[in-house]
C-alpha cells in the first residue's frame, strides 16, 4: 500500500538556523506514528510542513497522495488537525463550533446535522452541546478539538501534544479515543513529550533532535536496540561501589542517582539487599531511557 506520508530529504531553515535537517520518514496507512524530541528538536516545524503551513526549503513531501505544499488545499480536505493550543472559537457553543468548522470544509448544514450526535458522543460532550467554550474543562476542550478535527471524516489526523496539561483521568479518555480512531482505520501522527503515551499508543515512532531523526522503530525495537533489558536506579551513600556491580554492563551517575544497566538484575538486587542504607528501583528498560540516551540529559530551554 502507498504510504500516507512520505518525506524524503525534508529540510527547513530559518536564516542560518537549520530547524529540520534532511529527514526521511514514511507513515503507513492505519498506523499511529509518533514524533518524539526535546523542545526545539524540529517536531512542530515538521508538522507544519506536513500541513502545508510552512514551505520546505528542500526535499520531497507527499501527504495522502498529494505533493505538499503544491496541493496542500486538496490534501487538507481529508486531513484532521488537533493543535497544541485548542484554538476553539470562544464566540460559539460546542455545537456551533462543530457546525462552523464543517462550513470551512464546504460541508452542508444538512450533512453535518446528521453527524452531530456521533461527534458529540465521540467527545463525550452530549450533555454539553449548547455550553459555551469557557464553561468547558481542559479535557472537554481537547475532546471537542478532536471532534472538530473529525467533521470532514479525515483519513489522517495530526495531533500536536494531545494530552499536555491534562489530568490523568482526562488523558486516559483521550487515549481511548485515539485508539477508537485507529480502529476506524484512520492514520495518526502525534507529537508528545510523554514517553508512556508514546509507548502505549504509537506503532512506530521517530526520535528527533536538532532537526534530525536519530532513530525510527517500534517502541520495543527502539528499547532493544539502544538499552540493556533492565535498569536498576540506586540512591544513597556508597552507591559508587555498584558502578561495576554484578552483571552491570553499563552505568551512569546522574546527580545523586546511579543508573545501572544490566541483562540480569537478580544478582544486583541481591547484592543491594545487603546495603540497607541504599534505596533502589529495579525496572524494565523503557522509552525514556532510549530518549535520554539518544538526546542527552541537558536541560532544553
Amino acid at each position, binding site marked *: 500500500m502507498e504510504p500516507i506520508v512520505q518525506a524524503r530529504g525534508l529540510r527547513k531553515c*530559518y536564516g542560518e538556523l537549520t530547524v529540520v535537517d534532511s529527514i526521511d520518514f514514511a507513515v503507513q496507512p492505519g498506523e499511529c506514528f509518533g514524533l518524539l524530541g526535546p523542545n526545539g528538536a524540529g517536531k512542530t516545524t515538521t508538522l507544519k510542513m506536513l500541513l502545508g*503551513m*510552512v514551505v520546505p526549503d528542500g526535499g520531497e513531501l507527499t501527504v495522502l497522495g498529494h505533493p505538499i505544499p503544491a496541493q496542500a488545499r*486538496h490534501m487538507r480536505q481529508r486531513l484532521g*488537525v488537533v493543535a497544541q493550543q485548542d484554538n476553539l472559537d*470562544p464566540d460559539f457553543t460546542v455545537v456551533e463550533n462543530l457546525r462552523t*468548522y464543517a462550513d*470551512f470544509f464546504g460541508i452542508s448544514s444538512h450533512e453535518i446535522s446528521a453527524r452531530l450526535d456521533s461527534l458529540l458522543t465521540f467527545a463525550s460532550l452530549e450533555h454539553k452541546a449548547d455550553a459555551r467554550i469557557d464553561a468547558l474543562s481542559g479535557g472537554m476542550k481537547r475532546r471537542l478539538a478532536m471532534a472538530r478535527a473529525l467533521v470532514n471524516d479525515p483519513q489522517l489526523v495530526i495531533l500536536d501534544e494531545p494530552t499536555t496539561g491534562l489530568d490523568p483521568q482526562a488523558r486516559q479518555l483521550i487515549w481511548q479515543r485515539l485508539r477508537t480512531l485507529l480502529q476506524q482505520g484512520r492514520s495518526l501522527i502525534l507529537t508528545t513529550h510523554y514517553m508512556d503515551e508514546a509507548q502505549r499508543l504509537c506503532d512506530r515512532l521517530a526520535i528527533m533532535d536538532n532537526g534530525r531523526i536519530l532513530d525510527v522503530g517500534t517502541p520495543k525495537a527502539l528499547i532493544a536496540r539502544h538499552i540493556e533489558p533492565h535498569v536498576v536506579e540506586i540512591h544513597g551513600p556508597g552507591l559508587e561501589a555498584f558502578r561495576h556491580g554484578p552483571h552491570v554492563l553499563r552505568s551512569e551517575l546522574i546527580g545523586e542517582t546511579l543508573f545501572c544497566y544490566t541483562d540480569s538484575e537478580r544478582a544486583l538486587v541481591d547484592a543491594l539487599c545487603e546495603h540497607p542504607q541504599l534505596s533502589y528501583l529495579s525496572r524494565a528498560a523503557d522509552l525514556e531511557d532510549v530518549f535520554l540516551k539518544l538526546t542527552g540529559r541537558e536541560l532544553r530551554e
Partner: protein
Amino acid sequence: MRAIIQALLSLRWLAVWRRNARVWGKLAGPAMLGNIGEPLLYLLALGFGLGALVGEVEGVSYIAFLASGFVCASVMNTASFEGIYSAYTRMAVQETWTAMLYTPLSVADILLGETVWAASKALLSAAFVLLVAGFLGAVDGWLALWVLPVALLTGLAFAAMALVITAISRSYDFFLYYFTLLLTPMLLFSGVFFPLDDMPGLVVQLTALLPLWHAIELVRPLMSGEIPGQIPFHLLVLALYCLLPLWLATRLVSRRLHR
C-alpha cells in the same frame, strides 16, 4: 493578486463571512441600537444645534451637509474597527485564523471573508444613517439609494486598509498610531463637518489622496438629489484602496502565519 482573484471566484470566503455573521447575530440587538442611536443623537445635536448658528452650507441645510459626511464617516469607523480590533482578536488572540488554515481555506480566502464582512457591517451602518437622515428630512430624493453601493465600496477599502495594520501589529496599542495619525486627521479634514473651501491648499491636496474625501465627493451630491461629477475617477481611487491593501495584507498575513 491572482491568488486573491481565484479566492474571490471560489466563494470559499463566504464561510468566513458566515462565521462572523453568526457571531454578530448573537448580539444583533445592541449592535443595531448603536447603529441607529449614535447617528440620531449626533445629527440631532450637531445638525440642529450647530445648524442654527451655521445656517446653509454649499446650498443645503447644515444637517443635510452633515448627514452625508456622517454616512461616510460611519462607514470608515465601522469598517476600521472591525478590520482592526475584531480581526486582530481573531488572528492573534483567539487564533481563529490558524484553525481556519487547517481546513481548505487559504489566507486569501480568510482576508476576503474578513474584508467583505467588515464592509457589510459598514454598509449596514451607512444604511441606518441614511434612514435616520431621511427621517430628519436631510435627504433629497431617491437618488440617495446610490449611496449604498458607494458605501460598500468605501467599506471594502477601509476594511482592507485596516487588515494591513492588523497584519503588522504586535499588540492592541499599535492601533493608536493608525487612528491618531491617519483616521482622525482624515475624519477632520475630509469635509465631514465643514467644507474645505477655506482650508490651506496643501490640506486639500493631501486630503484628496485619501479615500474618505472621494467617498464624500460621491455621497454628498447623491443625498441632495444631484449626480456627482468625476464618478469614474472617484470610483477608481476607492477601488485601488481596496485592491492594493488587500494584496499587501494577504502577503503580510501569509508571512506571519505561515512560519
